[in-house]
């Protein structure tokens, strides 16, 4: 009996509490502060089509998690050299993609920024292996 009464009182108290604070709708402001999560998500390693891609995605994830994570941004490009490597292998195959990656490593010297477009937000040079450089024909404004 006593337990029931206490439980009832507690329940009504909690109900009262919710009622009293409903005007604040505090849940809306949960993300007002930065949550401090600096762990990036590696989408490049997802959606592997064959064993080669799985193997290289594994290498890529190992490098990203255990080596690159111990370093600040040192690559002059976006996507970075390791991301370029995995994307190149996925889009151009092992041989061409591999050669492209070796070439990219030598180009990653920051000596000729005039050759590339700049990502103004990241302040890095753009060089994406998937880019086909098609000039849009018809204006997107009229």
């Amino acid at each position: 009996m006593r337990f029931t009464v206490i439980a009832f009182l507690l329940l009504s108290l909690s109900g009262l509490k919710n009622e009293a604070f409903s005007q604040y709708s505090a849940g809306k402001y949960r993300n007002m502060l930065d949550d401090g999560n600096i762990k990036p998500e590696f989408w490049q390693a997802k959606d592997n089509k064959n064993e080669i891609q799985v193997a290289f995605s594994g290498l890529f994830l190992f490098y990203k998690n255990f080596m690159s994570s111990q370093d600040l941004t040192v690559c002059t490009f976006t996507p970075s050299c390791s991301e370029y490597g995995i994307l190149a292998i996925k889009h151009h195959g092992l041989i061409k993609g591999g050669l492209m990656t070796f070439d990219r490593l030598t180009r990653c010297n920051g000596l000729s920024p005039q050759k590339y477009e700049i990502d103004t937000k990241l302040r890095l040079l753009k060089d994406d292996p998937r880019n086909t450089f098609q000039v849009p024909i018809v204006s997107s404004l009229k």
Partner: protein
Amino acid sequence: MKPAIFLTLIISLAFTKANAQNLEQTFDFANSLFENKKYESAVEAYRRILFFDQENLYSPLIYKNIAESLYETGKPEEAAYYYELAYFSTENDTIKTELTLKRISCFLILKQPQYAQVELFNLPETLDSETRNLVTFYEALVYFAQGEYAQSETAFKSIATDTLVIESLFNKNAKIDRLNPKTAKVLSIIMPGLGQFYAGDVKNGINSLVLSGGLFFLGIRSAINNSLLDATISVLPWFQRYYTGGFKKAEVIAEAKIKERRYKVYNELLDQFE
């Protein structure tokens, strides 16, 4: 003949009237959508009225509802704009206060506490107790976001049911400041990984220690077995990269940890008001 024509005309007139939607009817339609919480559709209808209302008859009546609909559909930025228009198209002080409070809410959702603070100054001195509590809640959030924790604590305490919990949470918050990113950096310069351990990130601490330590060991081994030149060419650049990277990263990790803990305390504070 005559009555027939008359009849057709009447019917056609009635028909057009039934189908047509002039400004007033669209206004009523939009309002009914709004009342039934069909906010997306209400916004579209309100936009149409704003476009066709050349003489500005309905627009002042719409601003509040369109702002409300935008707020409910997750567009606080545009909502804040219409709340302001609504603010300047009313003379009623109670409504003005209500609109200002909504605008503050928009800015807090948009992570712009400084704008919210400007709006807080815009409120009248005398308020009823419920509104006063809401204002105090907003003040507490603004102060917390701007790092003025003492004022935030006072504000939170004045509206909380359990001030002891608030106090303990703010004590917890004060402890966060003991973590210093610069100290983390210095510790990691002394020994790779130490700063990360200090910040409470064991995984990255071990990672940094193993990586830099391993490269250091490899370099020494190469210098003894082969030559100093070999060690300089093949291992030193890598060691330098992960050693400097490690202590710079320690600082970044410590900063992120502070944010993470602050976020947690902040959410525990919010739990008290839900």
